[in-house]
């Protein structure tokens, strides 16, 4: 978004009496002058205007002042700034506003000077202003009207809501407004989000929260750490980090209940903290951090794997060695920079494998000797599960490793070898497109164009996997904001069920206190497909997550057009019913006994005697304005038959509207 679109000045023709001053009053014109207007102090503007027009007439104060002239209305960031020329003898000015040029105008304030800033505005709404002057003798006629549409940073509400659907979990009206208020749209929003420290004030890390709530030393915990994660996902203000962290749990999968560590809750809390801490670092840091966590070490079973023993005949565990290449970095087939598979020149029907079994066997030697850090064990029960694993030289295979055509020298330490191995993965041409495409799929769209993947992958390569740069490249790409993709029949992304739930919880403020562990525990495991979401963080059935990035639902138009749609991997006759029933119950009853807070939209339930305003607002908040007018009209016709004269009826209309919105495919498919 460039600067020229930031300032929106709309103007209606000046009244004849002020035409002479046009040239000196800043009105709609070239972008540069608009910016000058928006940034110039109001006082300077009004004095400029005054000087240019010579200060107006010289009526004595014995009569009412003349109507103010030269009114200008300048759209700003969630505000409109007005300036006009002084009326001789005026002691006060009254500013009135309407949403149509014909009025009716109602007063929004008074001013003793010749300027006024109206901050009680809704971005995207056109406002018409008039000013009258008054003194002891009376009140003047209204000035000619001037109009402005506040539209901060060039993002409309709908556009801002769309950005938040991609970069966050959607947002409440205040979140949308805050994004609109950013001086440079998503760019400055991203800068702000990147600047929020890990665990911002009031938000404990997962490990600290588990400690504070006496959950860290619970044996075979699953519920405690799950509660901590829901707390973060729903209530932590660093929403971009949370969104990326969720995407990272989709990539670097662990399932708490499948981890065979006594203090697995502590282990997973630490793993989550590591994902958060490195979410805005480099991808190499992420791979290093994840590869040190006991949670991953045990889930993919290289914790306590040791070098081959010629006496007992045991060999190093191959599990993580394979999956770190297959799932966490490279994938199984060689890729072009744009994410498409390389064509095998010898036989196009046979994919070019990224690695062979010998690479797995050599990589398995890298992942030997890793143990829990016994020195951490004294802090509290489970502390060693919540600390980096350490390499025990006696279990580590020090022989040379040949991985992906490169040698890791014999004799290096376990730590040095791990870093070298991950360095080899980082240098592989697959990692940039393989990881970039999956992040795009998680945040923006299921089928990014090869160009989109290529642009992000290029950033991945040029920044050595800098996550901030990658995230920025994904979210600021022209394809992410493309209006064309709103109507492209092949574009879209089925919103992850978990993201739909978090969106509801964030927008409607599930008001659990951050410290209320018992309340957060009530959310629980939402992975039951026939009664809940069919998906839940830390509950993946295996390391391949709930769905795969290359999945296309067979016997569908998506399949026939070669369109990948990962989330359809958990979309079936049973799970759609489960979701629709879950969401209906959630909307009316909340979760864990805590209902949604609908106070922001409740006043709209029967505004103007119908549900149009309610639906319009929910469409923006929930669906980024992506539900068609046709569908909204259908909803309205049904909703308007619900009598809202009782509070129960009012609630029913609200619940029904929200349920319709959150079940309609136009919402479910993020575009």
């Amino acid at each position, binding site marked *: 978004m460039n600067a020229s679109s930031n300032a929106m000045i709309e103007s209606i023709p000046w009244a004849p009496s002020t035409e002479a001053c046009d040239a000196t009053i800043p009105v709609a014109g070239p972008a540069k002058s608009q910016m000058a207007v928006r940034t110039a102090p109001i006082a300077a503007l009004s004095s400029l205007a005054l000087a240019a027009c010579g200060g107006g007439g010289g009526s004595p104060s014995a009569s009412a002042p003349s109507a103010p002239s030269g009114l200008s209305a300048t759209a700003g960031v969630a505000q409109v700034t007005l300036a006009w020329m002084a009326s001789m003898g005026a002691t006060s000015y009254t500013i009135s506003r309407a949403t149509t040029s014909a009025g009716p105008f109602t007063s929004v304030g008074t001013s003793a000077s010749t300027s006024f800033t109206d901050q009680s505005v809704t971005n995207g709404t056109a406002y018409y202003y008039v000013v009258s002057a008054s003194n002891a003798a009376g009140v003047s006629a209204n000035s000619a009207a001037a109009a402005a549409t506040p539209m901060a940073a060039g993002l409309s509400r709908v556009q801002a809501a769309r950005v938040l659907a991609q970069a966050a979990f959607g947002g409440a009206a205040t979140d949308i407004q805050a994004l609109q208020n950013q001086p440079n749209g998503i760019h400055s929003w991203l800068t702000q989000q990147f600047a929020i420290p890990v665990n911002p004030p009031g938000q404990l890390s997962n490990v600290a929260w588990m400690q504070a709530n006496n959950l860290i030393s619970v044996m075979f915990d699953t519920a405690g750490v799950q509660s901590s994660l829901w707390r973060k996902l729903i209530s932590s203000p660093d929403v971009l980090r949370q969104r990326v962290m969720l995407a990272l749990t989709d990539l670097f999968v662990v399932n708490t209940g499948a981890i065979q560590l006594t203090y697995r809750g502590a282990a997973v809390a630490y793993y989550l903290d590591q994902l958060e801490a490195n979410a805005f670092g480099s991808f190499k840091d992420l791979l290093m951090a994840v590869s040190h966590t006991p949670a991953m070490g045990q889930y993919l079973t290289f914790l306590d794997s040791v070098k081959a023993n010629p006496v007992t005949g045991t060999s190093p565990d191959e599990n993580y060695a394979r999956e770190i290449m297959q799932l966490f970095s490279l994938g199984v087939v060689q890729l072009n920079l744009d994410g498409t598979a390389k064509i095998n020149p010898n036989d196009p029907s046979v994919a070019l494998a990224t690695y062979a079994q010998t690479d797995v066997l050599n990589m398995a030697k890298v992942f030997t000797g890793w143990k829990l850090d016994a020195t951490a064990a004294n802090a509290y029960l489970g502390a060693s599960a919540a600390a980096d694993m350490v390499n025990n030289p006696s279990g580590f295979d020090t022989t040379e490793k040949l991985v992906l055509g490169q040698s890791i020298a014999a004799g290096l330490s376990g730590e040095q070898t791990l870093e070298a191995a991950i360095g080899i993965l980082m240098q592989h041409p697959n990692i940039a497109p393989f990881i970039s495409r999956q992040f795009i799929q998680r945040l923006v769209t299921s089928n990014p164009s090869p160009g989109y993947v290529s642009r992000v992958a290029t950033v991945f390569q040029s920044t050595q996997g800098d996550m901030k740069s990658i995230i920025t490249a994904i979210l600021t790409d022209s394809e992410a904001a493309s209006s064309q993709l709103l109507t492209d029949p092949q574009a879209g992304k089925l919103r992850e069920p978990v993201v739909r739930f978090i969106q509801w919880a964030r927008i409607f403020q599930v008001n659990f206190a951050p410290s209320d562990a018992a309340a957060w525990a009530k959310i629980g495991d939402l992975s039951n497909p026939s009664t809940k979401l069919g998906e839940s963080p830390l509950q993946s059935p295996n390391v391949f997550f709930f769905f*795969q990035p290359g999945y296309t639902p067979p016997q569908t138009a998506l399949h026939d057009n070669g369109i990948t749609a990962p989330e359809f991997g958990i979309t079936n006759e049973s799970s759609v019913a489960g979701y629709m029933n879950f969401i209906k119950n959630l909307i009316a009853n909340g979760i864990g006994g805590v209902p949604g807070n609908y106070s922001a939209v409740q006043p709209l339930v029967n505004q103007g005697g119908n549900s149009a305003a309610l639906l319009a607002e929910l469409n923006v908040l929930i669906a980024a304005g992506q539900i068609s007018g046709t569908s909204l009209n259908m909803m309205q016709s049904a909703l308007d038959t619900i009598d809202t004269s009782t509070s129960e009826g009012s609630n029913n209309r609200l619940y029904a509207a929200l349920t319709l919105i959150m*079940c309609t495919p136009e919402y479910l498919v993020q575009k």
Partner: protein
Amino acid sequence: MTKPASRREFLKMAAALSATRFAPPLALNLAALGESAAATATDYKALVCVFMIGGNDNFNTLVPYDAANYAIYAQQRPAIATAMSALTPTLLTPATALAGGEQFALAPALAPLLPLFNGGQMAVLLNIGTLIEPIASAAAYASAPATSLPPQLFSHLDQRSFYQAEGPIGNTSGWGGRIADLFAAGNGNSLFTCISPNGDSLFLTGLNTGTYSISPTGGAIPIQSIVSPLFGSSNCQGIMKTLTTAQRTAADGSLANLFESTYAKVVSRSLLGEQVLGASLPATTVTTFPATTKTNLSAQLSMVARVIAARNASGIGATRQVFLVGAGNFDTHNAVVTTQPPLLSDVAVSMAAFYAEMSALGVQNNVTSFTVSDFGRTLNSDGDGSDHGWGSVHFAVGGAVNGNDFYGMPPVLPPSLATAGPLDVGRGRFIPTMAVDRFGATLGSWFGVSDTDLLTIFPNLVNFNAGTRNLGFMKA
């Protein structure tokens, strides 16, 4: 009865398969189109696939028991070998003894299946796995071109996919679904042909027939806001149905969005299925299924049994059905000694209960269940578990099974830690000697698929001798 497999459908099937590199010549198959005896079936038959997701450890499932092979087994996996004394109660005595005095015992946790083996209702398949063509030896494997090997051997997703599809990952039909394609139109309602209480599956996806997903506990789930007034409003109920099932179109009449369209079709099927099955499904099974502890296999198979019990209900009228149930966590890289037995116990308890239920329904000879998994595992241990292998051991259970016997040959185990066996491609990953295609074709033949159609459904089958394609474990 109408011919279910139309020429157009079969052409589509053949064309789709020929897009892979595994297709037999098309003309051969198309010549027989419409001649399929299977099409006119009037009796009832069902296949029930029990998927052990993650790659079941076959060497701790069917354990070498004769002294020579047990010694090798114990040497290769010292910390995770099952004690011989624990195996004695489940030693199998097949009708035809293996050559050289070779013996096997079921894992103790599989004891509930022993009566079925002894009673002739369970067959044991030795060294079965994914193959495109026979691979004679480890040496032949080492020099085999990529086109003659299943893609990405030892990789979960790829091998799990190949096991079901007999084509590479990205191949979007499986052999259970392709068999069902031939029969779907012969059912009263084709929606109830391929059914899973374990989510979508490639195995059940044919070219025209898809997975119908049900809940293992609830069966067909009604959508409350469509089957009853939405917060008291029948108008909203009606609009909910319209919005969630309609195919929204653009101004020119084309689909407005393919994702939305696809989603709406799933909702439509959910509603249609629930209307019929919800009304027909018996509330309980005849017999009692014991609860399983680590998986919900018992719930899944009891739900399958209830669906089978409803096969003749109005609106269903099924003559051929294919089911899939599944459970995970079989990827025992570690702690196999503690992790695997409860999983195997769940499999055995559930499959035995399922057979008993089928007997109670009088369809024990009409329903065949069988196990599959991603792959076998290494004989050689990684300490407290085993790693991804290839050939494995599987079971087929039912009254139509030629049970109480072994089928195929076990691999020769490596004579020492330093010396691999002839079929060993490393650490006791054994080249299968029975292809999944042959296994599926044997089941398909029992189901009523013609030999000609089998060659289309199982694209690698043509690479195996015609005389050995049917493994013989099913009664004619």
